[in-house]
C-alpha cells in the first residue's frame, strides 16, 4: 500500500483520508437505508403490531427519563436567567427567556440526545445482537423482508415518539422552570406565566417540534444502520452502539443548525 519513500507528512493525510472514506461510507449506507425505508412507506405497508410494540417500548418507557431530565433543565434555565435578574432587576423576562430557550433549542436538542442515548443505542444493540446471531438471515430465509418487518416500524415509532416526548418534555421543563423560579428567585407563578404567554407565540413551540421530528428520523436511521451493519460478536455490538450514538449526536447538531436557518 505505502510507497517505500514516504515522508513524515504522509501519516496525517492517510488518517484524514481514511476518516473521510469512513464517513462517506456511513453516510452512503444511511442514505441507502433511508431510500429503502421510504420505498416501504409509499404506500405504507408495515407490521402494525410491531409498530405499536415499538411505540410503547420507545415512547411510554422513556417518559420518566425525559421528564426527569427536562425538569432539571427547566431549573437550570431559570438559574441562568436568575443571574441576570439579580444584575438587571428584570424579573419579568425570566419566563420569556426560559421559554424561548427551551422551546426552540434546549428542549428539542436535549430530549433528542437523551432519546438517542436510551432508545437509539438500545435499538442498535438489539438489531446488532440479531445481526451477529444471524437472526436477520433467518428472517430472509423465511422470505420476510427485514427492512419492512424490523426497520420501518422502528423508524416510524421513533419519529412519532420523539415528537410526542418533546411536547411532554417542553411542558415539564416549563413547569420545572416555574417551580424553581418560585423557589430560588421568589417569583410568582403568574409573573412567570404572563412573561411566557405575552412574549412567545405558537411558532416558537412548533419550531422546536419540527426539529424534534427530524431528529427522530435521523436517530432512527443512524441507529438502525449501525445495528444491521455490526460485525464480530459482543465487541462489535459495543463498538456499533458507540458509533451510533456518536453519529446521532453529530447529526442532531448539524440538523439543528440547518433547521434553525430554514425554519421561521
Amino acid at each position, binding site marked *: 500500500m505505502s510507497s517505500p519513500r514516504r515522508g513524515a507528512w504522509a501519516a496525517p493525510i492517510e488518517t484524514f483520508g481514511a*476518516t473521510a472514506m469512513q464517513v462517506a461510507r456511513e453516510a452512503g449506507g444511511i442514505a441507502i437505508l433511508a431510500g429503502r425505508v421510504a420505498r416501504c412507506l409509499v404506500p405504507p405497508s408495515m407490521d402494525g403490531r410491531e409498530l405499536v410494540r415499538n411505540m410503547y417500548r420507545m415512547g411510554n418507557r422513556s417518559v420518566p*427519563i425525559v421528564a*426527569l*431530565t427536562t425538569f*432539571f*433543565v427547566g*431549573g*437550570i434555565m431559570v*438559574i*441562568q436567567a*436568575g*443571574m441576570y435578574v*439579580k444584575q438587571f432587576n428584570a424579573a419579568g423576562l425570566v419566563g420569556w427567556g426560559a421559554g*424561548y430557550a427551551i422551546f*426552540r*433549542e434546549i428542549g428539542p*436538542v*436535549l430530549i433528542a*440526545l*437523551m432519546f*438517542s*442515548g*436510551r432508545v437509539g*443505542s*438500545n435499538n*442498535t*444493540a*438489539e438489531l*446488532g*445482537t440479531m445481526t*451477529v*446471531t444471524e437472526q436477520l438471515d433467518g428472517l430472509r430465509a423465511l422470505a420476510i423482508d427485514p427492512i419492512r418487518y424490523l426497520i420501518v416500524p422502528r423508524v416510524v415509532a421513533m419519529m412519532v415518539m420523539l415528537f410526542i416526548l418533546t411536547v411532554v418534555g417542553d411542558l415539564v421543563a416549563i413547569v420545572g422552570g416555574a417551580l424553581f423560579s418560585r423557589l*430560588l428567585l421568589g417569583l410568582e407563578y403568574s409573573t412567570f406565566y404572563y412573561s411566557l404567554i405575552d*412574549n412567545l407565540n405558537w411558532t416558537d413551540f412548533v419550531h422546536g417540534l419540527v426539529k424534534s421530528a427530524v431528529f427522530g428520523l435521523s436517530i432512527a436511521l443512524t441507529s438502525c444502520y449501525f445495528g444491521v451493519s455490526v460485525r464480530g*460478536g*459482543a*465487541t*462489535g*455490538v*459495543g*463498538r456499533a*452502539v*458507540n458509533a451510533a*450514538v*456518536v453519529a446521532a*449526536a*453529530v447529526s442532531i*447538531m*448539524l440538523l*439543528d*443548525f440547518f433547521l*434553525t*436557518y430554514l425554519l421561521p
Partner: protein
Amino acid sequence: MSARERIERVGAAALDALAAGGQLARTFGATWRGVFRGQRPAGEVANQMYVVGNKSLLFIAVTLGFIGMVMVYQSCLQLERITGDLSQVGPEFLKLLVQDFGPTITALMLATRVGAGIAAEIGSMVVTEQVDALRMSGVTPIDYLIAPRFIACVVMGGVLTVFGVAIAFLAGGLTAWSSFDLNPRLFFDPSRVRFFDLALGLIKTASYAMAVPVISGFCGLRARGSSEGVGAATTAAVIGSSLAVIVLNFVISGAGLILVGRDP
C-alpha cells in the same frame, strides 16, 4: 395487576436504585484509591488520553461549533426583534459559555462518545471473561481498567472544554458577523467574564469529568450475558452519565446562584 403488586414493584425498583447508588459510590471511592495506590499497565494513562482526547477533537469541534452558531443566531434573532441592540451578545455569550454551556455540552458529548466507549470496551471484556482473568491474576479491575480512564478523562475533559468553548465562541462570532453584520470587535470581548464564572465553569468541568468515567466503567463492569448485555451496559452508561451531567449542572448552578445572591 393488583395494588399490592404495583407497590411491591415500586419498592423493588427503589431498592435496586438504592443498591446501585451505594455500589456506584463504592466504585467512586475505589477509583480514587486506584488512582493513588493501584497498579496499572505502563503507558495506559497516555494511551487512554489519546483515545479520550485526541480522538474526540473532531467530534467536539463539529458539535460545539454548530451549537455555538445556532445559539448566537437564535439570540440575535430574538434580540433584534425586541431591543435591536446586539452589542452585548458577544460578551454575554462568552460568559454563559464559560460558566455553563461550554462545560455542560462538552460533557454531554463526552458522555456520548467516551462514556459509551468505556462501557462497550469494559463490558465486552466482562462478557468474554477477561475481567475474571484479571481478578484471577490478583489485579483489581477498577485499578486496572477504570483508574487510567478516570485520570485521562479528568485531564482531557478540561482540555476539551477549553477547546470546545474556543470553537463555539469563534463559530458564534463568525455567525454574528456574517448573518447580522455585527462587528467582531464588539463580539470578541472577554471583559464580562468574572472570576466567579471561570471558577464555576472549572468546578463543573472537573465534576463532570469525574462522573462520566466512573458511571460508564461501573455500567461496563455490571454487563452480563453476551452481546445483548454489552449493548444494555452501553445504553445504561450513556443515559446514566448524561443524567449525571444534567443533575450536577443543576446542583452546582443552584449553589452558585445562592452564593452570588448573598455576595453580589
